[in-house]
């Protein structure tokens, strides 16, 4: 595709300047006349029954307008995840807006609305709650033992789900192997650390209709889940789209307590009610699920994999929420699909504990899996003397192969081989020294990890929404409005979608603007998750733009007295193919279409023909025909200080087949951000809790360490491979999540190469390194 005009360019983000000068479009800045401020009272106990709540002192405090306790909220049991139908059979419903039973430290037990935040906070201290403490359990393995505290009535041994799948005969496969490798790999609980807190303002009118502004990643999911939890039909909830939000990384894909409580408090007070999380509240509202993965691989002498067995223990925490879903994505797209094996089996266990809720986080179960898979491949290669690149090339799919998840799809554009070979060449892989051979106290090593199969959305996933919609309207000044319920969560989604629209319409990028809407006037869209927006929403935008262009050219054909099929549009000018002199601007055509029926000209009123009348628009609501897989390999160089145990990432080479680069600068940003979160996951980030009370000990950035610019390598090289995916808009498929799936195992493998020590649990802290070097 050589003659692209807008796609493939690092155009300036439309919201860049506005964000730099303060970003008034962020939902955190929403303020409505007469607005009240809400606050939640949270349980200090991880497991307790509420015996009584006395709110009388709080209610008497001047400025307090409403106090809400479990008896004041609908007793509708729900699951908070946005992207699955609220009544889906595939998820478990076990939450209430406010409950008499507390299952994690920090669970809200009451809420207040007052005229100021300070009064609301003071009111919380005047609410008297009598708790009956119950025994709590925090370790998922302990939670499964006989006699462990029962967290949800009737759930035996706290085991929420035990999914499994496989193919062939895995025992037979291990018999056919010449070598069998096994290991257990553990990952920790980490938080996404988005910038903008979760915040919302609800305005419930006298008819009970709820209008809500919120910093979420799924507009229609918010409408559906909020309606469900409140017992309302979806048409009684309007979710307003913010022009952009301050980050999600998956954390804003489920109903938060604030949204339901603000709607209820607003109904009770007849005023808009705002609730905003403190950073502490953000930290304990959801996090990546810690997982323990056992992985066993059978390999023949020639490096062919004969069998793969894995089991996963997932701490779904106090509530089911994402747990049973995240473990499936983890198992298929994280653990099992990437490497071919004739015999496979996987078994999962999802367990309740009294920990804070698990949530979605960029990669949705795959980073936990990749740490196991990619570490073990390194172990296999080290032991059997295979080159890690060769080994991966031998056991992974190629372009044109059937998609391992659904053989009806083909890997249409797919270049994992190029990711591996080009990345290796750029990194200087062939010069890699033998593991542990570096001398001195600052030892360097290089390592790599790949992720062969991942998603571009959720087509093919049971009970997960995937369709997108878009509306394009052309203006008399030759510009176009694009409306879509896709949420821009900071990655530049709006810009990418406007580029696709501009390309398809034949307009300049600057001529297309995103016009935000709401759930009353926009077609449905699945969330901004699963690396889906460019591929899936992009597809819908392209279809809507093509529709609008068809309508545009039909009108142009009439006014230009040409055949619509002979017309083309470029940079806002319509020309007849082969006769460039015969040209008319898009603006003039749209003006004609929007003009009155009688146009007054120099010769007096002249009628225009009926056929060319009306707003030129295009509309779509579609899902892509497949779920194209990106492919990725990352190479890193680290330096391990064997005296202090500290690890520096010196250099990273990231090779990714994303089909088509729509916006190179935005793509590079995804890689850098993913590496930053990956370095955190690999080396320093972890949420810690008091072993007695379950209270979060790392709920601010003093104690929760994430990498800053200083920890980032000065060199991050991206190699984008454009395989031109047939099912994607302009050949594009996905990028985002893979950027965070591969760094941790790549870093772990590089550390092994530097010091000859293998780590099976994250994060690899200085203390773990020193202990492994025998210095503890």
């Amino acid at each position: 595709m050589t003659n692209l005009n807008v796609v493939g360019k690092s155009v300036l983000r439309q919201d860049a300047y506005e964000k730099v000068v303060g970003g008034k479009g962020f939902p955190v800045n929403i303020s409505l006349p007469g607005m009240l401020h809400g606050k939640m009272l949270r349980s200090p106990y991880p497991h307790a029954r509420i015996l009584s709540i006395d709110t009388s002192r709080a209610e008497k405090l001047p400025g307090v307008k409403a106090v809400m306790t479990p008896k004041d909220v609908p007793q509708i049991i729900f699951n908070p995840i946005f992207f699955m139908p609220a009544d889906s059979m595939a998820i478990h419903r076990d939450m209430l807006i406010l409950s008499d039973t507390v299952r994690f430290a920090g669970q809200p037990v009451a809420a207040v609305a007052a005229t100021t935040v300070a009064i609301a906070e003071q009111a919380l201290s005047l609410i008297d709650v009598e708790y009956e403490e119950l025994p709590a359990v925090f370790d998922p393995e302990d939670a499964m033992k006989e006699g462990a505290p029962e967290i949800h009535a009737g759930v035996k041994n706290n085991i929420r789900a035990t999914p499994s799948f496989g193919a062939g005969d895995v025992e037979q496969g291990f018999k056919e192997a010449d070598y069998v490798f096994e290991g257990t790999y553990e990952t920790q609980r980490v938080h996404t650390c988005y910038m903008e807190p979760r915040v919302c303002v609800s305005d419930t009118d006298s008819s009970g209709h709820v209008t809500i502004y919120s910093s979420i990643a799924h507009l229609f999911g918010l409408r559906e889940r909020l309606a469900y939890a409140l017992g309302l039909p979806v048409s009684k909830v309007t979710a307003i789209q913010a022009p952009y939000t301050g980050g999600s990384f998956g954390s804003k894909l489920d109903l938060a307590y604030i949204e339901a409580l603000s709607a209820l408090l607003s109904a009770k007070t007849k005023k808009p009610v705002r609730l905003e999380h403190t950073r502490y509240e953000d930290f304990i509202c959801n996090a990546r699920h810690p997982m323990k993965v056992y992985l066993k691989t059978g390999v023949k002498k020639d490096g062919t994999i004969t069998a793969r067995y894995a089991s996963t223990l997932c701490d779904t925490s106090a509530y089911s929420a994402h747990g049973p879903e995240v473990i499936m994505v983890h198992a298929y797209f994280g653990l099992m699909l990437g490497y071919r094996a004739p015999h496979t089996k996987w078994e999962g266990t999802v367990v309740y504990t009294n920990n804070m809720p698990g949530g979605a986080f960029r990669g949705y179960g795959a980073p936990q899996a990749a740490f196991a898979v990619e570490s073990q491949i390194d172990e296999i290669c080290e032991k059997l003397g295979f080159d890690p690149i060769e080994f991966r090339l031998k056991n992974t799919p190629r372009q044109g192969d059937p998609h391992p998840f659904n053989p009806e799809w083909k890997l249409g554009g797919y270049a994992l081989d190029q990711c591996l070979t080009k990345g290796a060449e750029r990194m200087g892989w062939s010069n890699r020294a033998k593991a542990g051979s570096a001398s001195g106290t600052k030892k360097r090593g290089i390592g790599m990890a790949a992720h062969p199969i991942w998603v571009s959305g959720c087509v093919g996933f049971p009970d997960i929404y995937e369709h997108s919609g878009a509306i394009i309207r052309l203006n008399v000044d030759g510009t176009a409005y694009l409306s879509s319920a896709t949420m821009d969560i900071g990655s530049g989604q709006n810009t990418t979608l406007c580029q696709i629209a501009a390309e398809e319409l034949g307009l300049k990028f600057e001529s297309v603007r995103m016009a935000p809407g709401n759930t009353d006037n926009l077609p449905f869209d699945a969330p901004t998750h699963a690396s889906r927006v460019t591929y899936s929403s992009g597809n819908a935008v392209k279809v809507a733009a093509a529709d609008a262009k068809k309508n545009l050219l039909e009108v142009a054909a009439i006014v230009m007295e040409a055949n619509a099929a002979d017309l083309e549009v470029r940079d806002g000018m319509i020309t007849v193919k082969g006769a460039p002199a015969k040209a008319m601007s898009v603006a003039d055509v749209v003006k004609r279409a929007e003009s009155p029926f009688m146009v007054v000209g120099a010769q007096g009123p002249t009628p225009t023909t009926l056929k060319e009348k009306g707003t030129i628009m295009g509309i779509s609501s579609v899902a892509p025909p497949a779920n194209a897989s990106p492919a990725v390999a990352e190479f890193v160089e680290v330096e391990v200080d064997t005296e202090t145990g500290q690890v520096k990432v010196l250099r990273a080479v990231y090779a990714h087949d994303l089909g088509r680069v729509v916006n190179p600068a935005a793509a590079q940003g995804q890689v850098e951000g993913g590496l930053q979160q990956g370095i955190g996951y690999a080396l320093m980030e972890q949420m810690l809790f008091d072993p007695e009370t379950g209270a979060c000990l790392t709920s601010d950035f003093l104690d929760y360490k994430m990498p800053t610019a200083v920890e980032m390598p000065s060199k991050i090289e991206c190699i984008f491979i454009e395989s031109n995916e047939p099912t994607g808009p302009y050949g594009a498929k996905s990028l985002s999540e893979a950027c965070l799936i591969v760094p941790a195992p790549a870093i772990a493998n590089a550390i092994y190469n530097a010091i000859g020590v293998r780590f099976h649990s994250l994060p690899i802290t200085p203390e773990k390194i020193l202990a492994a070097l025998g210095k503890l």
Partner: protein
Amino acid sequence: MQEITTYLAPRRLDEALQAMADGAATVLCGGTDLAPQTESGARQYTAKLLNIRRIEGLGGIETKGDKVRIGAVTTISEIRCNPMLAEIAPVLVEAAEHFASEQIRNAASVGGNLCNASPAGDMIPPLLILDASVELACWREGAVQTRLIPLEGFFVSPGKTVKRPEELLTAVVFDRPAADFVGKFRKSGPRPALEISTVSVALGACIADGRLSNVRVAMGSVAPTPLRARHVEAALEGKPLDAATWAATIAVAVAATAEDAKPIDDVRASAWYRGHLVRVFVEEVLNEVRGN
């Protein structure tokens, strides 16, 4: 919750001292400790907030004779960029380099760092090895009264000093280090920048005739207050720098750290790791001092 009812930003020291004579004012300098602490609820403002930033004569870095004086409101950035300090006390500049981020350094003051009395305050170990004193002033009997306290005796416990509530820290002073004095600073945390020190070590000594003398060692985050490591100092005093005995000297000094450093476990690091880093840093700075 206490509301601030009076905000004062005097230009004269005596005005400021009179305003705080009742011991009931909250002193605000850069606010980089005060704001997070009040925000989190760890401490409360009093009714009177006293901004000391505008007091004339409370900032600046100057030498008079062999005395060096750094005014209390001097920012960490000013220390970091001061050419005179770079020449006569580069260890202070080195510590300022490792201090927080550009934005924080522009606001944070040396006086605030000392008065906040965190065991992790980064300006403290280098000032301890410079044998600095702090100047405290108050309003009494119709006049400004000052006293000088050796920094080593200033700290009582985390957040607590011997400074009385009606006293303002006006300056930190120390003797111009001898020409052959070499000082070094090391700090570490799980991440190298924008970090509260997991541990920090400052070491200084005069190097003459192939020997260490006037050895001063200070540590942060290894006890409730920053401290002078007297056992390590004793192990090093007078030791020769020659290659034959150097390894043994280091070994003795490293072993002595166990006498001085009594770190604790917390979410940022284990006591073991802190103790280990102290040993590593002492060895590193000793080698740097010797190489100088």
